[in-house]
């Protein structure tokens, strides 16, 4: 038992030692992506080009949970480059929605040490779409034509109907009169349009469903919708660090993907169920070597991810135990200060997981360290609390007997308090472990791997099967962990009265 604990401890130390050195050495390039199909595909294209160039070892940190995390990661050099959109940069990152053009945005970013590539080509923004048959019949290509049309029906998401810059503004901008509008859930709107219940709906302009349902996207000829032109986002130094790769990106990708092409690539993945890698190859063409990577068996991948997952949980748990048990004991001996400590761990519990992960990026980068740390923080409360409760439940009589025997507090701890509180402590550890098996699925958002990777990909693709290939093993692991602790409890090393 002891040997095992030491082995795990030693092992976990080395894990941390490795991960502490999170900033990648010069000859590696970390490519990031957000957690939706288009971002995955673009990032995969980048990765393939960079691999082909061979200037640096390519590391993929795909599927990170949102703009905040990606930007934080870039700022802290946890990633070197990721695909972004001009509109997102001006609104979310710079928080200056007035900046519209590529030039303005690039200039502003450059001041802060960042840079963006020229436009990849397509613009992923809101757009109005209609059935192809309807479009040909009425001969509509531009939104401005709506002004002269007699009657039509529109279906919009409730959000678009309500938003300041939504439907009301659109109506004003294009000066079309009062028409039937229907508030409808986005995915249902496609069906409604297809079955001629509505004639127009709002879409994302590169949505795979545009191709699936054969829709026509109307040209925003009076420039109502903001621009979300895809670009590459990186630090200024990127072009100097990887000059050849930089050049290759410009040569193969920049200016090369139109809206129609992006819709096709998206639908390759979302409709035809091809992998991101296949979609990337479809764009890059035959010139790119395919053979290098042996395709993982699905089962093997799940196993690898499960192991990664359990490593996240177990390592963070060991450190949580190492801190929380002493904290619980301390809280028991110093009730006042103890309550404060317990309160603090409770507060940590209430921080939303993603917010905590995001908050940790400036200090720990992305990948394993913040994931370990966040799981560690979440593990603390149940263990500290149960340690405290376990110690509190020891009868005073027994503590007095310890005193009368002349035990030192250390002897008392080892011979009496710890063995008697062990069961309670263990159930705290069990709670933490089971909760963390669940929480660890979020680690994928910051590129720490684990079963969340599958869930994340599945969510991006809206593909329940892939979600389940991550969720079911995760649930299974949770049960396994639960049973593991039940068995330990039955064995109860420290007590003879069982």
């Amino acid at each position: 038992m002891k040997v095992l604990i030491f082995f795990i401890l030693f092992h976990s130390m080395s894990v941390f030692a490795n991960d502490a050195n999170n900033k990648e050495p010069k000859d590696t390039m970390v490519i990031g992506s957000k957690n939706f199909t288009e971002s995955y595909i673009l990032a995969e294209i980048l990765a393939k080009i960079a691999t082909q160039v061979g200037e640096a070892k390519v590391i993929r940190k795909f599927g990170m949970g949102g703009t905040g995390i990606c930007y934080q990661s870039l700022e802290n050099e946890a990633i070197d480059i990721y695909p972004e959109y001009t509109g997102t940069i001006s609104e979310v990152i710079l928080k200056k929605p007035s900046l519209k053009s590529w030039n303005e945005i690039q200039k502003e970013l450059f001041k802060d040490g960042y840079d963006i590539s020229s436009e990849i080509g397509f613009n992923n923004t809101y757009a109005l779409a209609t059935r192809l048959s309807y479009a040909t019949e009425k001969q509509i290509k531009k939104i401005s034509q709506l002004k002269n049309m007699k009657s039509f029906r529109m279906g919009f998401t409730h959000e678009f109907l309500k938003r300041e810059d939504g439907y009301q503004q659109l109506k004003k901008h294009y000066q079309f009169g009062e028409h039937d509008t229907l508030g409808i859930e986005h995915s249902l709107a496609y069906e409604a349009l297809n079955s001629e219940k509505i004639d127009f709906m709002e879409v994302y302009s590169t949505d795979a469903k545009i191709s699936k349902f054969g829709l026509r996207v109307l040209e925003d000829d009076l420039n109502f919708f903001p621009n979300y032109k895809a670009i590459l986002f990186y630090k200024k130094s990127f072009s100097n660090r990887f000059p050849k790769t930089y050049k290759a990106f410009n040569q193969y990708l920049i200016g090369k993907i139109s809206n129609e092409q992006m819709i096709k690539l998206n639908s390759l993945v979302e409709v035809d169920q091809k992998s991101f890698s296949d979609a990337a190859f479809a764009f890059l063409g035959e010139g790119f070597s395919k053979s290098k990577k042996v395709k993982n068996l699905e089962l093997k991948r799940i196993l690898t991810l499960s192991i990664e997952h359990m490593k996240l949980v177990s390592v963070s748990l060991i450190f949580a135990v190492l801190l929380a048990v002493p904290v619980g004991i301390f809280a028991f001996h110093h009730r006042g200060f103890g309550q404060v400590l317990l309160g603090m761990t409770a507060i940590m519990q209430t921080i939303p997981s993603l917010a905590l992960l995001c908050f940790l990026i400036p200090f720990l980068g992305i990948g394993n360290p913040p994931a370990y740390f966040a799981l560690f923080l979440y593990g603390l409360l149940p263990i500290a609390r149960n340690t405290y409760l376990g110690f509190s439940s020891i009868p005073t009589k027994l503590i007095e007997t310890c005193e009368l025997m002349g035990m030192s507090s250390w002897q008392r701890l080892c011979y009496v308090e710890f063995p008697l509180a062990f069961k309670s402590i263990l159930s705290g550890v069990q709670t933490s472990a089971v909760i963390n098996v669940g929480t660890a699925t979020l680690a994928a958002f910051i590129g720490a791997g684990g079963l969340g990777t599958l869930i994340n990909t599945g969510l991006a693709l809206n593909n329940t099967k892939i979600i389940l290939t991550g969720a079911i093993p995760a649930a299974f692991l949770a049960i396994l962990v639960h049973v593991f602790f039940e068995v330990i409890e039955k064995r109860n090393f420290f007590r003879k009265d069982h």
Partner: protein
Amino acid sequence: MIELKSVSKSYGQNVVIPSLDLKILHEKTHCLLGTSGSGKTTILRLISGLTPLNSGEVSIQGAPLSNLSRQEFASKVGFVSQDGGLFPHMTCWENILLPGKIHNKDLEVLRSRCYEFSKMVDLPVSLLDKVPAQLSGGQRQRVALIRGLILDPDILLLDEPMSALDPMVRASLQRQLKIMFKELKKTVLIITHDLHEASFLGDVIHLLNGGRIIQEGSFKELYERPKEDFVDEFLKAQIPDELLNHKGSQS
């Protein structure tokens, strides 16, 4: 040997010990006798420092209690609390040998001493492999007694150590203990409800009521010259009628 000087103790408004003077003499066996709730356990707790006193002074072998460290106290004083205080998670063997481990004693010596004691208290050694919960109340008391005696301390503080034993075992144990106390020259304070036990074991008996010592002395003194009606009543309650009649006809 043990001395309490105008010791008082109250829990909030409840004055349990108003003011107590008590002397436990060297190598003598003293019995604290009294009704339930009269403060017997409290006195023992005051002597062992488990309960802080409100005023007065306790000294052990001339040294103030407050100057003794827990270790020093434990090496001088063996203690058996009213409910035994055995550790539920250890076997009886482990319970008994624990004081030895704490004080770095030779466990083999203690083990053979334990065999001796368990014969003396009439407890099968095979029971010692069990945990306390698997023993009867009387068996547990004997294990607790063995543990209290195991380090062979000079002073013994025993809180009703035989209350759960059947009369036969108790009688033989009382005989054994009396011999041991004398042979090994122990200073003993033993709490009991049982008048017979007090009269048999006690060189000095302190009769307690409401936290005050009503009378102290040998059983004979208490019996023949009760200071208050209470003493007479207390004794009468436990002495069979024939004996009382006998006393009545004498006086």
